[in-house]
């Protein structure tokens, strides 16, 4: 059986394709086009990861258009339709213009305009009162991915505000399970598992697994397609046929939520057939480390163990050696001295029976046969072997996964397993490899200079997914923990958190006071008590350290804030001042904060500073044009400095008092389990036979641009894609109104019958607000059930059914 061939076909004659890459170079111009036009450099700060540098063209004090602004390296220049309409958000007819106070019931859309003084006084008074009566943490702040700048973003003055006042800063639960899983193997935290996208050219195969970059990362796609034209093979694993699948050389449909079975079986196949990269395994992974059978601990010297005990979060232990079996000397020795450690075998170390990690791993993975995987995933055995062949013979493999698999409850196990697969086949830490398409790079910037106020710290152990429960019980981690007020900025939680009805049933009724800072009447703003108008990206100075590209970029303020809007940083300072924390959260010019951010010893060593940024607008701060950054090229950010095939200690991503011990004990090696709900094995499947995925489409970044007039002309109303068989069985035709429902809620919208969707699924572009649906919202049907260790929303892990009509 051959891999299902996608029609796009390979660029067979790579030689023909290659020379055009440069011939097609576009002459990007950031010059003013007419004499009275001024051009400001800015950057898109939506959380689509791409970090596009843009020019804002200003005439008569109005931003007339946005154009892609050249990066010092042309390959990185580009933007999308959303970037081109950023100025329309500034001038949006529905923009929030003034502080608005609710006068009717929550959500009734009745508002009264008040002055900033009234608004700020009210907030300060209430917050002060709650903190006095219930403790600092009674005021919670929810900030998510709305602004990926620095000063005015969640990670900027907002965090300083939370730290200074010791508020509850709600912990994010978006996109963290996969990285939590890979972190067990390669370290680097939830996002430190990827290489610079320009490195795809060094790959032999790009495996796009659970991502749809033609929609969700169009700038990355440019690099992928260029590599493709140069002969790199593109393979896509996705339950649905997407724009990405259409471009790949092969597309392998898979049953959603079963990727972990595939990864486990691949590892088993590779190890049991001795297909691993032995050199790599020996020197760069913990494969030869000796693992005690009794304690389940890696055996190390006393000093090594002491090093580990002494480690702190700020100063973690790194490159700690462990015992390995010296095959030449036939005894154990330290991994940093033994030249020829045994990869496999059972040994005795001072009477303690142990095996190598690889031997233990083989045993742990042995049950995961190709046949079982084929059965679970719907991917034929032969195809799985071909994927294995890619890993073994057609590397370097650049794994381009983003956060679709992350949205199921077994995601971290997938992350852990696939990281092991890469480690064992040597597809990691070398040019052309990566464990993710989402490259997050925090750099050497002085973010702490903005956020820290002495040792004062916010309470950060209340995850988004537990907000409703905490409000309901008034408890967290077994302790009383009343939350009375919620301040929302750079986030639209009512729309983006799972299980929306929890807001109506629990969160809103239990919250005394909800304040939202935004630019539009989002779902969250609509149900707030007070709404504050913030300045848009074009109306503030800021700086962005990009994800997915290696630049730090300045954001020049193009125009003054319109109406009565104010920059976030200023709003926090004004509230703090009224609450007596003016000194801790000063109302500084954003440029000052940027200077702070750009000042660190390491930056100085690299010759990067504020003045240079002002002059050059964008500076590459990692890697070089010739040698793109490769993640973990030298060593891994793990205790051993190696890829850790065995996870010695398992702690939850956020410990908010949940019961996780039993689960943790099972995950030293990954194992495969079904998705929580979105699985044929679930009893609910009989009642709700369809998995609902809510994809990230070009028409919005999450909920941003939700009512942009230009984009709404292209994509006027919510639609859900349903496969032909499922549609026929329900008497549904394209353009029919349908209702999607499960026990948690329902929503009504227009259906489009699409052959891209296999039976058993429905898929819809996410980001619409409630009032854009005929009824309800897609977020009503998702679930807040999370894995106790990964603590991450699992948006796609939900079953629904669809009926025609309301």
């Amino acid at each position, binding site marked *: 059986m051959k891999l299902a061939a996608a029609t796009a076909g390979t660029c067979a004659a790579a030689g023909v394709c290659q020379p055009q890459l440069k*011939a097609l170079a576009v*002459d990007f111009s950031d010059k003013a*086009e007419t004499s009275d036009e001024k051009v400001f450099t800015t950057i898109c700060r939506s959380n689509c990861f791409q970090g596009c540098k843009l020019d804002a063209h200003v005439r008569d004090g109005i931003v007339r*258009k946005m154009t892609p602004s050249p990066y010092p390296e042309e390959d990185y220049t580009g933007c*999308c339709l959303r970037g081109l309409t950023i100025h329309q958000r500034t001038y949006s007819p529905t923009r929030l213009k003034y502080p608005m106070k609710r006068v009717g019931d929550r959500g009734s859309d009745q508002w009264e305009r008040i002055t900033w003084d009234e608004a700020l006084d009210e907030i300060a008074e209430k917050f002060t009162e709650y903190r006095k009566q219930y403790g600092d943490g009674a005021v919670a702040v929810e900030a998510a991915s709305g602004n990926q700048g620095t000063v005015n973003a969640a990670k900027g003055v907002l965090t300083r505000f939370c730290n200074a006042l010791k508020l509850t800063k709600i912990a994010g639960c978006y996109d963290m399970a996969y990285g939590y899983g890979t972190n067990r193997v390669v370290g680097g935290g939830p996002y430190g598992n990827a290489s610079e996208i320009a490195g795809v050219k060094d790959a032999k195969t790009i495996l796009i697994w659970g991502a749809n970059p033609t929609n969700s990362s169009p*700038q990355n796609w440019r690099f992928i397609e260029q590599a493709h034209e140069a002969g790199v093979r593109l393979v896509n694993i996705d339950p649905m*046929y997407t724009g990405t699948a259409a471009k790949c050389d092969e597309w392998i449909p898979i049953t959603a939520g079963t990727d972990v079975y595939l990864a486990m079986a691949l590892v088993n196949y590779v190890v049991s057939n001795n297909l691993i990269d032995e050199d790599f395994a020996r020197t760069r992974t913990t494969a030869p480390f000796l693992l005690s059978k009794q304690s389940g601990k890696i055996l190390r010297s006393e000093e090594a163990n002491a090093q580990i005990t002494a480690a702190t979060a700020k100063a973690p232990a790194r490159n700690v050696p462990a015992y390995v079996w010296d095959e030449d000397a036939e005894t154990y020795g330290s991994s940093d001295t033994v030249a020829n450690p045994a990869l496999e075998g059972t040994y005795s170390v001072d009477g303690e029976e142990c095996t190598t990690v690889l031997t233990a791993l083989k045993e742990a993975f042995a049950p995961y046969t190709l046949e079982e995987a084929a059965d679970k995933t719907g991917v034929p055995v032969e195809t799985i072997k071909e994927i294995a062949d890619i890993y073994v013979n057609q590397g370097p493999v650049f794994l381009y996964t983003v956060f679709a698999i992350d949205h199921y409850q077994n995601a971290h196990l997938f992350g852990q397993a696939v990281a092991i697969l890469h480690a064992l086949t040597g597809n990691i830490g070398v040019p052309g490899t990566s464990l993710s398409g989402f490259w997050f790079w925090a750099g050497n910037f002085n973010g702490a200079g903005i956020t820290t106020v002495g040792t004062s710290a916010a309470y950060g152990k209340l995850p988004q997914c537990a907000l409703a429960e905490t409000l309901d019980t008034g408890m967290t981690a077994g302790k009383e923990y009343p939350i009375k007020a919620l301040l929302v900025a750079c986030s639209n939680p009512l729309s983006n958190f799972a299980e929306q009805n929890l807001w109506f049933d629990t969160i809103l009724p239990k919250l005394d006071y909800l304040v939202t800072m935004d630019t539009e009447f989002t779902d969250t703003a609509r149900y707030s008590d007070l709404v504050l108008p913030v300045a848009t990206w074009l109306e503030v100075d800021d700086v962005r350290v990009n994800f997915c590209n290696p630049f730090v970029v300045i954001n020049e303020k193009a125009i003054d804030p319109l109406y009565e809007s104010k920059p976030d940083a200023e709003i926090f300072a004004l509230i703090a001042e009224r609450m007596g924390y003016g000194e801790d959260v000063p109302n500084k010019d954003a440029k000052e904060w940027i200077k702070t951010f750009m000042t660190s010893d390491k930056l100085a060593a690299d010759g990067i500073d504020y003045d240079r940024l002002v002059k050059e607008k964008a500076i590459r701060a990692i890697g070089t044009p010739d040698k793109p950054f490769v993640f973990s090229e030298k060593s891994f950010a793990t205790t051993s400095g190696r890829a850790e095939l065995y996870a010695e200690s398992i702690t939850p991503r956020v410990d908010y008092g949940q019961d996780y011990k039993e689960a943790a004990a099972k995950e030293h090696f990954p194992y495969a389990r079904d998705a929580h709900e979105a699985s044929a094995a679930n009893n609910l499947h009989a009642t709700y036979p369809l998995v609902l995925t809510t994809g990230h489409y070009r028409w919005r970044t999450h909920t941003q641009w939700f009512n942009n007039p230009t984009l709404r002309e292209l994509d006027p109303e919510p639609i859900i894609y349903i496969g032909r068989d499922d549609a026929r069985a329900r008497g549904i035709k394209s353009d029919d109104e349908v209702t999607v429902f499960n026990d948690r809620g329902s929503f009504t919208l227009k259906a489009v019958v699409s*052959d891209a969707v296999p039976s058993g699924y429905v898929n819809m572009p996410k980001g619409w607000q409630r009032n854009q649906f005929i009824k309800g919202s897609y977020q009503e049907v998702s679930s807040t059930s999370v894995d106790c260790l990964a603590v991450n929303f699992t948006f796609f892990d939900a079953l629904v059914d669809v009926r025609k009509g309301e």
Partner: protein
Amino acid sequence: MQYALAIDTKRCIGCNTCAVACKIENNLPDTMWWNRVLTVGGDHTDTPQGSFPHLSMSYITLSCQHCKNPACTKVCPVGATYKDSETGIVMQDYKKCIGCRYCMAACPYNGVRNFNWREPEYTFDFSQGSEDVPSLVKGTVSKCILCNHRVKKGLEPACVAACPERARTFGDIDDPNSAISKLLASRSNYQLLDEKGTNPSVRFLS
């Protein structure tokens, strides 16, 4: 000289950036699109052709093809749409046009000529895009004029400069040494509805 566009359908991901760039650059009124992204696949945008899992889908963008043998210019009773002899661009003279819409009936590429069915309406109360685009006029036809105002200044058309996938190439196809001519020479390409004999200058690389 014949200015032209080459659109690489292998690179095009249907992202609509070019459509939006065109709309803003030329300050097009609400609901008007000179350049549109069409799905070559199923009955709806972004749906494929075939049955699961044997599927195919691609995109083309559609704007005036700047035909070498334009159907539109011949039929215009007042010469309001004409082929610029210097650039080969099929231009529109809003002042001359009487709004008979014969050109729209004559053009085989449906939807590339856009009539101003009303006084242009704008969501925003300021003009967007470039300062030097002429204002649209109620009761006359408008369409892509290959960003003549930019090309004159040596800039690329807005849609070309904005395409994140570098799928669009602009240039003179009468000059064998231009980048676009070389590109066309090196890749198989086709014209839309070539059987109509209009000889479009927009080429699709396949």
